Structure formats: C-alpha cells, structure tokens
C-alpha cells in the first residue's frame, strides 16, 4: 500500500511548521510534538482524509529521557494511503484520542496495561489484559518474558500421588503471580458503574462467547443499558515472545493467534518479514500460498457459520459445516502435516512442496463445495427464524466503520469495500480475478451474506491457482534459497553441505535484519491483521506489534448492543466473529 506522498506531506508541513516528515524505506512518518498531536490528528482526519484508525501502540526506549514513543497508524480510504504519526510521551503521559476515534480507547488501555503510559482524558483507564492490582508492565524492556516467579504452586497431581524428593517430573515450584477471585471481582467492578437493575456476567467460560471473552451487561429487564468487555483471558504474551525469539521462530506463534485461520496469519507475518528482509518469493510459492490462504478462509468462514448458527439454535448447520471443514483440514494436513496450527509457510517460500495429488483433491473439493453452499443457503438464507434473529440487528453505519477501525467482512457488510487483497496485493492476489462482496444495510444478516459470498469468491481464486499450478513445472522452486536469510528446504539440507551450514547458521544466530520499520497487513477472515515491526538491526525485532482485526471489530460491540436485548448479543457477537487468540494475543 502506498504511504503518504510528498504533495500531502508538504501540505501538512505548511500547516504544521514543527512537524518533521520522514520518508523511510517502507513508511512515511510524521514526528510531532505532543502538544500538537491532537491538532495534527484532527487535521489528518478531517482535512486530509485519513479517517480510518488502524492502530496505536508504544515503543519502549529505556535509555531515552521520555522513554515511551507513541505510534499511530492511519489510513486514507480515498487515496488508499497510510501514514504513521509518532510522538513522545511526556512524564509518562499522552493525550487520549477517545474523542477522535472511539476505538482508540481500547488501544490506549492496552498501552497502559503493557507499558504503564497514562492517558489524559481517558474515560476509564484500566488494565486491558491483566487484572486490577497486577503490579508490573510486561512489555517494558526491563521486564523478563518469563515473568517474576513469586508464588509456590506445586503440581497437585504430584501431591496427590505423594510428594517425592526429587519430584516426579522436572518443573519449577515457583510460579508467576496468579490472581484471586477477589482480584477478578475488583477488575469487574472497576469496569462498570451499575446504573440499572442488574449486572449480568456473560462469560468468560461460556459456550456462547466464542472463547473466553467476558461481557458485562447492565440490564433493565431484557434491555441492555450499558455494557463492557473484559479481555485478557487468553493473553499469552505474544508480543513479548516476539521480542525474544528470532524472526523465523515466531512463525509458529502466529498460527496460535487466530487459530482458525492459521495460514492467513502466517501469510501476513511472512509478508511483513519478507518486506523487511527484502526477500523475493518464487512464483510457485506465491500461488500455493494464495491457494492455501483461500482454503483457510473457507475453513474459517465455515466455523463461523457453524458456531454462529449453533448459537442461534441451528445444530444441523454446525454438523454440516464441520463435515466440509474436515475435508479442507485433510487437504491441509496432507501438505503441512498438521491440521490446525500448520506452520506451513516459511520466510522466502514454503516448508514443503505441494504434496502428490493435492491438486486433484482440491479440484474434487471445488466441484463438490458449491452444492454444499447451496445446502447452507437453503437451511438459513430464507429461514424465517434466521431472518427474524438477524435482520436489522446490530446495524453498523459507514461512519462507524472508520471511527472504530473496523475491517474485514464487518466493514464490507456496511458497504465499505476495504480489502487488503485488492488495496495492497500480496502473494498472488494481483494475478487472480475476484470480486469484493459488500452489504447495504450493515446488519447481522448482511454480514452473513457477505461471508457466504466470500466463500464463493475464494473458490474462484482457488480455481485459478489450481490451473496456474498445473501449468508450472514440478521442479519449479518453492523457496528462494539464494537469499542469505532464507533457510534451504529440508531435502537440500541433507544433500548439500553449503545449505546445511547456512541453515545451521540461521538456526543458531537467526536472520540478521536491517534497521528500519515496516507495517504490513493481510486480509484475514476476521479483518486486517497487521504486523508493525520496528527493527534496530539484529535477528530479533525490537518491537513487534500485532494489529488485530478481531480486537477492533469487537470494540464496537458495547455501542451496538446498547438498548438491544441479551438475545441479540449472541447474534451480534457471532456476526462480529472474534477469536480470542487474536484479540488477546
């Protein structure tokens, strides 16, 4: 995606004399003094058209005086350009952007939770992922990844069997701090001041919440007066891990973020790293990547369809959808060796070549699937119960799409044709033909139709990939192993000394990346999954920020459910389709 061009940058410069414009290799950065931040952002939003809020995060520089640098990423949907705005915190404080973009509230909570940066003017600055009373700020550079072991938590299995010296298995007795129920209660109470009759907790361990999201509804009868969402019940510290491992080592972790669409996550990640390291990817690998990413998209939408319908009482759809999922899983397993968390992609290519017979199986699937789609349509699309539960529920306006940073099918359901595959084509998306379905009303039903149509479009893409791959010779390379930072494929490693030495070097020392920064995103089934990598050289990123589409899509939930009923919450949540692994990371 292009970044802010010089003409616009000059205009900004005219308006704001003290803004430094920096054109880096992959981005355009505007450096601004903190006092002028809000003015600049207002100007960018209202005058320059940068109205889609992509992300906000901080970077910790312990040796600098101000220590925390704030990073804002914005997007201009008209000219299709991005820009990064940077400023330094003053005395550990930043102004809150809540009034400009309501979703910034969540990003700021996260930055407060992870770095301890305070935000002036934030309505309720609380811990985002950890609990109230947690004393540390984990993403600060001086905090260890393993945390601080401070409580004794021995294995109860062992205690039950009789504790022995030495212990029956190898583990540490000491453990990081675990909250008590009181801590959690305090967390809950700090979020919502009760206004109406009753506060209902929905989740965190509830089958309908698609994982471990914790909702609070302040109810007046059936009507929701206000609500809030507590996240962090699956916060595993991904961004901290990323700072502590080599680039290639982080790849399997991306699988475990949005675990329903593992290959799409990998694709976004490797695209970002490849841009940073400047790796060219062979044609065959690009097509295989595209094919599998689209298979994964169908797979993910099927899970959304199955569970979304199950939540509204349609068990049949769940069983039918899983029948098809198993077929896709088999194709993926046959190639990657893993059903769910595949780790199939590699920086510079793929881990394996296409397995024998894959294309035949994919073709059979392509032939078979449209009939199955018709089956789902006949079960739901004109079903009266389904219509009553989904029509005109949770209507999202076009303005809200920009204000809340919504992306993916949620944005497209409201008629905003925002699709990274078209705007910034990666893999082979610029060489295949497909359409972007958009909705009109922006209700749950529209999002349902958009996703159903996306599956059809994915089929189209897969078909084109298959016919292209059939034409390519079998011996075509699937890894760009000439590049110094790319590992050679396994079969070469066993036969060739040079390749073995190279792989050995990468595994031990990691790839060495040039200093610089990139922001690259991919179109995930859940929205834009972006990776902002800040590198100071070396084999580990200095800061890796994951821009989660699901998190921002979820941020509109409290607004949509206001004055709705509890029953609508379930339909609405299903249509936003968050995955906790990605919202919490």
């Amino acid at each position, binding site marked *: 995606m292009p970044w802010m061009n010089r003409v616009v940058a000059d205009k900004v410069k005219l308006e704001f004399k003290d803004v430094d414009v920096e054109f880096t290799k992959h981005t355009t950065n505007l450096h601004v003094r903190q006092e002028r931040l809000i003015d600049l952002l207002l100007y960018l939003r209202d005058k320059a058209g940068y109205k889609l809020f992509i992300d906000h995060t901080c970077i910790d520089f312990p040796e600098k005086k101000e220590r925390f640098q704030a990073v804002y990423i914005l997007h201009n949907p008209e000219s299709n350009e991005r820009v990064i705005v940077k400023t330094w915190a003053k005395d550990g404080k930043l102004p809150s952007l809540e009034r400009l973009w309501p979703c910034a509230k969540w990003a700021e909570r996260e930055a407060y939770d992870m770095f301890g940066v305070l935000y002036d003017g934030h309505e309720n600055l609380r811990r985002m992922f950890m609990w109230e009373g947690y004393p540390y700020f984990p993403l600060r550079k001086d905090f260890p990844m393993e945390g601080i072991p401070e409580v004794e938590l021995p294995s109860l299995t062992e205690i039950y069997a009789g504790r022995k010296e030495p212990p029956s298995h190898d583990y540490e007795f000491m453990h990081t*701090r675990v909250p008590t129920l009181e801590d959690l209660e305090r967390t809950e109470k*700090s979020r919502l001041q009760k206004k109406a009759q009753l506060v209902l907790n929905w989740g965190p*361990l509830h089958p309908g919440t698609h994982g471990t999201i914790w909702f609070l509804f302040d109810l007046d009868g059936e009507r929701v007066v206000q609500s809030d969402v507590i996240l962090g019940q*699956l916060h*595993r510290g991904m961004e901290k891990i990323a700072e502590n491992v080599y680039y290639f080592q982080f790849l399997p972790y991306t699988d475990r973020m949005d675990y329903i669409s593992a290959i799409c996550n990998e694709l976004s990640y490797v695209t970002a790293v490849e841009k940073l390291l400047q790796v060219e990817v062979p044609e065959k690998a690009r097509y295989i990547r595209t094919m599998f990413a689209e298979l994964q998209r169908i797979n993910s939408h099927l899970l959304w369809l199955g569970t979304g319908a199950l939540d509204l009482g349609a068990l049949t759809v769940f*069983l039918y959808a899983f029948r098809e999922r198993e077929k896709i899983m088999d194709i993926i397993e046959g190639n990657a060796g893993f*059903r769910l*968390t595949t780790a199939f992609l590699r920086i510079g290519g793929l881990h394996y070549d296409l397995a024998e017979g894959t294309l035949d199986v994919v073709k059979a699937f392509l032939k078979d699937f449209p009939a199955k789609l018709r089956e789902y349509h006949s079960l739901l699309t004109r079903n009266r119960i389904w219509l009553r539960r989904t029509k005109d529920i949770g209507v999202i306006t076009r303005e809200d799409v920009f204000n809340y940073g919504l992306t993916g099918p949620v944005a497209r359901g409201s008629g905003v044709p925002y699709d990274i595959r078209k705007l910034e084509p990666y893999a082979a998306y610029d060489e295949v033909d497909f359409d972007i379905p958009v909705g009109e009303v922006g209700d749950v039903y529209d999002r349902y139709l958009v996703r159903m149509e996306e599956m059809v479009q994915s089929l189209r893409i897969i078909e084109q990939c298959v016919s292209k791959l059939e034409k390519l010779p079998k011996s075509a390379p699937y890894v760009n192993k000439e590049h110094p930072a790319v590992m050679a494929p396994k079969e070469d490693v066993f036969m060739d000394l040079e390749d073995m030495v190279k792989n050995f070097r990468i595994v031990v020392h990691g790839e060495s990346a040039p200093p610089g920064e990139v922001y690259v995103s991919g179109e995930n089934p859940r929205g834009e999954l972006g990776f902002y990598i800040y590198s100071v050289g070396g084999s580990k990123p200095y800061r890796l920020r994951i821009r989660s589409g699901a998190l921002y899509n979820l941020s509109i939930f409290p607004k949509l459910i206001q004055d709705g009923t509890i029953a609508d919450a379930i339909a609405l949540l299903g249509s936003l389709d968050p995955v906790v692994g990605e919202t919490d990371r």
Partner: protein
Amino acid sequence: MAMLNSNGFVLTTVDELLSWGRRNALWPLTIGLACCAIEMMHAAASRFDLDRLGVIFRASPRQADLLIVAGTVVNKVAPMLKLLWEQMPDPKWCITMGGCASAGGPFPTYSTLQGMDRIIPVDVYIPGCPPHPQGLLYGILQLQKKIKEKGVKKYDKAFEEFKKDMERQGLIPREITV
C-alpha cells in the same frame, strides 16, 4: 468382574457396576479455551463423533463429571476454572488436552499458567499442539481404563490442599469495594 453363570444370572459387585456406568457416561463440561478447543469441537462433530463413547457435552458444571481443559490456561482465567471444577459434583476427572494445559506448552511467559495440574489434579495428560481428535479419543479411552482399574479416586488429600490453598489466597469470595 462380572460373570455370566449357567442360569443366565450376571454376578457382579456394586463397585464394578457403578464404575461401569461411570466410565461409559463421561459427561464433559463445555469449555473451550484456545486452539485445542477447535479440535475438541471436531472430535464432537460429525467425523469423530464423541457421542459413540457416551461422551456428551454439558453446559453446566453441575451436570458434568469430566473437565477437558482444552487450550491455554492463563493466570487470569485459572481461578475461574478452579471455581468451575469445584462446582462439579464428585466423582470427577480431569483431562488436559494439549501442551499448554499440560505444562504451559509453547508459552513460558509471564501470563501463562505452567500446567493445569498446578491448580487441579489431572488424570490424563494428552500431548500435542493441538492433539489430533483421535488423540483426544485415545485419552478418553485411557481415562475409561483408569476408572476401570483404579475405581473412583478419593480426593480427600487433594481437597485438604485445596482448602489450605483457598484460605491462604483468600479465594472464598467476599463482598468487596473498589
């Protein structure tokens, strides 16, 4: 052991009968935490069909006697999981599915619980990241075998530990103010 004698009577002990009933109707609690939960759903869906083993997911802990911990248990969710476990009536069993629930898995971080057995005694550990649905089936079969061979476990000892632990951590909820 049950025996069929020549008159067509089945002779067995009450213990054996109960254990037969228990191991063939394990009702797990419907809880999914992370990636492994997807594989658990697959195990319950059309292809692998857990119902064949008498495994039927229940939405309330009061009706369940098996806790399948499928996914990463982070510190923040641990006390709630423990609360659910305590709400389940005896006899009950616990299976940890996947590396995360068993021992922290790929996440040796500040926020992740390093093994479910730190807060709940575990009967069967299933390795994998995630385990194949067949792995889960195998784990459940192993649990059935364990129930058959060992009978119903007495949890007294573990309960003592729980109680001490609860008192130490102040886990018994009280009204608090913010």
